[in-house]
């Protein structure tokens, strides 16, 4: 067993109060949206039907939370048990992220009652990538909830190893853990490939700088390096056990994996860009090419920050490197769905303030819940 402990401390600290304020503002606009329609709070329109809600909530959010998936893979599949200490917080963050992705899907959809049709056989449309994504998100939320349950149960287990309902459920979950873990690795892979696949159907409406039949694969690969990065960045922020050498070493090894995966991603991206004949487009001076190069500058700086063994053992480089690479991955997603997407030439989209506030407010709520849970339940391991 690991030795995770509640962090403890006061719950209503000033940062939490500030985040609560953000949440309340977002919540107010959410109410307005439900009364007066999507158009009343957002800049979504016929030429940009998906905006910051979908991208933030589903694409970026879901990529960020991939920490749960890569740590499960490293610990249970490649069998690096020493990395076990990272699992719980990563899984918790994934769970919250995916729940919010599901939630933002709900307020983004215009006929939300119709969301139930995802589960009614008569309406299921199995050729649709979006259907696959919806089912994967739902199933994965379930799996993550099962993965995090032991931490909650431990709170209710009697001291000294006596049996009670919590203890026996805990033991049972441990027994079937391998079944859940396998789902926990398979589902996000399918789901990430689906998020890329969604953009493939945009066809020519997506700029050739991003459009490729390999977009599903690229989404999976980028989600893996982003998963490592989010685990490292979160560790630096919450645990930051830098005195322990083995701890820094482990972060370094994860960063190294992220490094190679990111290289693989870059190579495939560029092969596809040349194959598409889009290299010329990258050289033109345009809004699109600006964001395209911003994406690559981030990736290159990120890679540079963590190249070589020396940099990999510096907590500062690990933190900065993971943040920068992460931002590069986020921008890739933003670019495929907003910047590189053009249905009517010349018309652009920028989210409105209320629209942004809803996303920010919901994100704030996510952080509040995360912090509160690690204070109360045994999630984080410190030596």
């Amino acid at each position, binding site marked *: 067993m*690991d030795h995770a402990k509640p962090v403890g401390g006061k719950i209503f600290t000033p940062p939490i109060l500030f985040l609560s304020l953000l949440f309340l503002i977002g919540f107010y606009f959410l109410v307005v949206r439900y009364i*007066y*329609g*999507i*158009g*009343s709070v*957002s800049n*979504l*329109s*016929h*030429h940009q*039907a*998906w905006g910051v809600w979908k991208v933030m909530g589903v694409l970026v959010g879901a990529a960020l939370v991939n920490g749960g998936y890569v740590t499960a893979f490293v*610990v*249970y*599949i490649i*069998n690096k*048990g*020493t990395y*076990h200490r990272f699992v719980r917080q990563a899984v918790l963050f994934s769970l919250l992220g995916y729940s919010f992705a599901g939630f933002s*899907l709900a307020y*983004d*959809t*215009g*006929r*939300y009652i*119709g*969301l139930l*049709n*995802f589960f009614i056989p008569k*309406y*299921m*449309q199995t*050729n*649709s*990538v*979006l259907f*696959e994504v919806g089912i994967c998100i739902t199933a994965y939320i379930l799996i993550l909830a099962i993965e995090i349950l032991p931490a909650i149960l431990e709170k209710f287990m009697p001291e000294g190893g006596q049996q009670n309902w919590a203890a026996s459920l805990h033991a049972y979950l441990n027994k079937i*853990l*391998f*079944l859940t*873990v*396998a*789902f926990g*690795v*398979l589902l996000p892979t*399918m789901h990430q*490939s689906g998020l890329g*696949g969604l953009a*493939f*159907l*945009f*066809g*020519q*409406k997506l700029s050739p700088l991003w459009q490729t*039949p390999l977009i*599903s694969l690229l989404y999976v690969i980028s989600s893996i390096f982003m998963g490592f990065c989010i685990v490292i960045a979160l560790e630096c922020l919450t645990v930051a056990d830098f005195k322990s050498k083995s701890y820094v070493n482990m972060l370094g090894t994860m960063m190294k994996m992220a490094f190679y995966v990111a290289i693989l991603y870059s190579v495939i991206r560029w092969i596809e860009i040349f194959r598409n004949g889009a290299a010329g487009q990258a050289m033109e001076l345009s809004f699109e090419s600006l964001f395209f190069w911003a994406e690559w500058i981030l990736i290159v700086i990120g890679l540079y920050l963590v190249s070589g063994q020396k940099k990999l053992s510096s907590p500062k480089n690990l933190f900065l490197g993971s943040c920068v690479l992460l931002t590069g991955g986020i921008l890739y997603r933003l670019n495929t769905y907003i910047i590189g*997407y053009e*249905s*009517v030439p010349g018309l652009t989209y920028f989210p409105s303030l209320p629209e942004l506030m809803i996303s920010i407010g919901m994100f704030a709520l996510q952080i509040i819940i995360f912090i509160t849970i690690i204070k109360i339940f045994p999630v984080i391991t410190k030596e």
Partner: protein
Amino acid sequence: MDIKRRSFLKGIAGAGAGVAATPLISGTALARESYKLQDEHVGMLYDNTRCVGCKSCEVACKRANNLPVEPDEALGIYDAPRDLSEKTMNIIKMYKDEDETAYIKRQCMHCVDPSCVSGCPVSALNKQPNGIVTWDADACCGCRYCEMNCPFNIPKYEYNEFYGKIVKCEMCINTNLPKHGQPACTEACPNEAVIFGKTKALLAEAKRRIKESPHLYVNQVYGEKEGGGTSVLYLTKAAVPFSKLGLPSLPDYSQASASESIQHTLYQGLIAPIVIYAGLAAIAFKNRSGDKEE
């Protein structure tokens, strides 16, 4: 033991990569061809050499389908939509340069292999046996993926309603078509600039017109091949190519078929996911005991 596990893992990773790469390398295994135009498919043929821009078709469409007017900005009294919208599912647009004027009628193209149908997660969009692409209010969840993926930007969500619908031309399938045997727009047109019929017959008619007066037309029937073909066909006057009328130049296969080829290869019979799942579960099961001691 260690070696065994590694090789097992490699096997799975290899299988996974192989599955993912199949459609891209061989392009055949489970490739789904673009659907073909059927004999019973109906459609429209619009010929802008005959259109005078009277907009009778627009008015008739709104009347038949009970759509609200979109007043112009200056006076606020005329119905003057500027583009397709949630209030306007049929529109006449004009192209003008120094010496040429040309009209184009825009509405749903009723694609032979529509992206909107392929992408809709809850079967709200359907291609009927007669080829008309319809929308089902009970099924739709308002995700607006159809708005995002339609190559012609046709479906329009009602952003200013609290529970908006998707609005698009359904060739009057529940309104004028059963009543008068044809859509309101073709019925209203004084010049037969837009006509209704079986798509195959319309295609033959379009080709006949080009052959009869080659100097009059661009030598292309838009919709014969574009995006795998559409049930609505266009002819344009020789001086104004389709690109100037705002019609995209699409490949001659449907994006839906390309997308579904990849999907089917990955998920056919759920075989690949099940195999990979079983593999992952087996590995996790094997690693289970070692994990506890850590």
